């Protein structure tokens, strides 16, 4: 407890915890927003989403080691999310869609979707161990991102601010895409009534694959961004998945802004909570979730789009 009070008194410590908490919140947001979109549109709880994030990090690692120069991180940053999106599309097209077609009853469909996506988690976590080995990997940053910034009496790598910027920009782009473009309108229409959208001539199954790929893209982007800070390991997906679920449930399933707000809440709660009671960092998030679910069962901003 004293550690927390001391930190609140000193601006440099405060800034340090704040930045760590916020960058973590961005990773949570990128994963949670993907989960949220996929759940909102396809009604699938994608248990493999943490593994997609992990794939992003490993792909990015391989990319940065292919060439000698750390500048290739930029290349990874552009290409890898699309690779992960491609894998997501593959998952949806060959595994999840046949399940939707096979089980007309909602309860069964949900069960077998959870089963299949969890199967992918187990499979991918071991696959990563087979291909890359059970080690930790990290990446060297390109020179433009490795620079240090002095803020509130503490130096930070500029990379942290880059991650924050990407997070905010992706939230805005996502919002714009879903609310102001034709694709977004079709997606939102599919959320409220799939059958009418289909009867109006929209190919719903390609739409679903695209949405799933978009969610996977966001997860992959999270993975690429996380590699230099949090390093890649086979456990990274599972660890962040449960917290992302909490973010989604707290923010409201299917809500982008809700996901952002609750990701920030949990990121901050985590980085300061760890000072108060170090051994219970995970429990804070769960307690927050329990409180929100009791007071507002639909989450902070349930279903706003």
């Amino acid at each position, binding site marked *: 407890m004293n550690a927390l009070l001391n930190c609140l008194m000193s601006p440099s410590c405060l800034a340090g915890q704040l930045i760590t908490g916020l960058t973590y919140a961005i990773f949570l947001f990128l994963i949670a927003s993907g989960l949220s979109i996929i759940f909102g549109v396809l009604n699938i*709880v994608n248990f493999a989403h943490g593994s997609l994030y992990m794939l992003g990090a490993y792909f990015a690692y391989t990319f940065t080691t292919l060439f000698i120069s750390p500048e290739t991180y930029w290349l990874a940053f552009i290409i890898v999310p699309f690779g992960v999106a491609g894998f997501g599309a593959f998952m949806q097209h060959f595994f999840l869609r046949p399940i939707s077609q096979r089980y007309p009853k909602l309860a069964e469909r*949900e069960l*077998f979707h959870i*089963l299949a996506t969890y199967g992918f988690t187990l499979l991918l976590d*071991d696959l990563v161990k087979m291909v890359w080995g059970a080690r930790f990997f990290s990446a060297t940053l390109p020179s433009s991102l490795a620079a240090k910034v002095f803020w509130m009496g503490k130096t930070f790598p500029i990379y942290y601010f880059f991650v924050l910027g990407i997070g905010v920009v992706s939230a805005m782009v996502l919002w714009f895409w879903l609310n102001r473009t034709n694709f977004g309108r079709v997606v939102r229409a599919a959320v409220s009534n799939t059958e009418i959208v289909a009867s109006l001539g929209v190919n719903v199954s390609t739409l679903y694959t695209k949405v799933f790929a978009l969610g996977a893209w966001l997860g992959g982007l999270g993975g690429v961004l996380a590699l230099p800070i949090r390093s890649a390991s086979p456990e990274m997906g599972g660890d962040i998945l449960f917290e992302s679920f909490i973010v989604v449930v707290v923010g409201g399933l299917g809500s982008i802004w809700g996901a952002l707000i609750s990701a920030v809440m949990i990121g901050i709660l985590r980085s300061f909570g760890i000072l108060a009671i170090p051994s219970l960092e*995970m429990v804070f998030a769960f307690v927050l979730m329990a409180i929100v*679910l009791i007071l507002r069962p639909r989450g902070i901003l349930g279903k706003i789009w």
Partner: protein
Amino acid sequence: MVKKNFWVWILVILALVSFPLIIQAEFLTFLLTEVLIMALFAMSFNLLLGYTGLLSFGHAGFFGLGAYTLTLLVTKANLSVLPSFLLALLIPLPFALVIGYFCIQRLRVYFALLSLAFGQIIFSIIFKWYDFTGGDNGIYGVPRPSIFGFALNSTISYYYFTLPLVLLSTAFLYFVVRSPLGMMLRAIRENPDRAEFLAIHVKKYQLAAFLISAFFAAEAGALFALYQGYSVPGFAHVNKTVEAMVMTILGGTFSFIGPFVGAAIVTALDKVLTTYTQYWMFVLGVVLLFLALYLPGGVVGLVQKLRIIIQSKKVESLK
């Protein structure tokens, strides 16, 4: 039909009782004990999944609670094994009551996520609370029980400690499933709204099922801690729940005996495969995908389907 099933049951029980006497392989008896314990855990899971329609993703939390209650009472409170075992069945119940109460407020996916969150809370508390639970090191040195002064420390004697407990629990679960309560649960699974309209207090029944299920999960956990001689946080991890889920669905969700069959297959597969490969989770993942896509009824469902096909062929040949 009922009579035929009755004789099958008697045969299975006789086979289980005489197994260690006929087949003098200690390793197989050791394995069979694990099968029995995991089967109990999977059946408790299936009471919720198959009969009530609730996917309890945090079910291993109760398995872990049972295991740790017993382990802590024996190693820290120096209580003897049998009273600890009884307490390990009872102490998780109030936890199950609170967790169950919150979880059943929501249905389907939300229930799964909520129960997952509670299960992971239990896991992370066990994992992090070094002073009390030993953290990720776990607690070792759980002695085997002794009855009337006879220590059950051989493989075979522990088998005969486990077998009657598992059989009694199975009989009780069978009784629950066939009772009016079981009928209510199935009605709720098929259509909660309609059940509600029939003036069935849906949440009360779901909570009852949750409690019964948690009780047997805790029993399985306590038995498993005695079997292994230790408790580790992994007992409460979601992957343990997934093990029960794979056993249940591989065996057959909508049959009573399915989880038993699944537990036997998965345990055998685990022991065989881990001698060839360290990537057991990979195999489990492939099995899950295969089940979801091609074999939703599990092995028991497949057998029933084959039986129907054979019978219809017979009918055709008679024509």
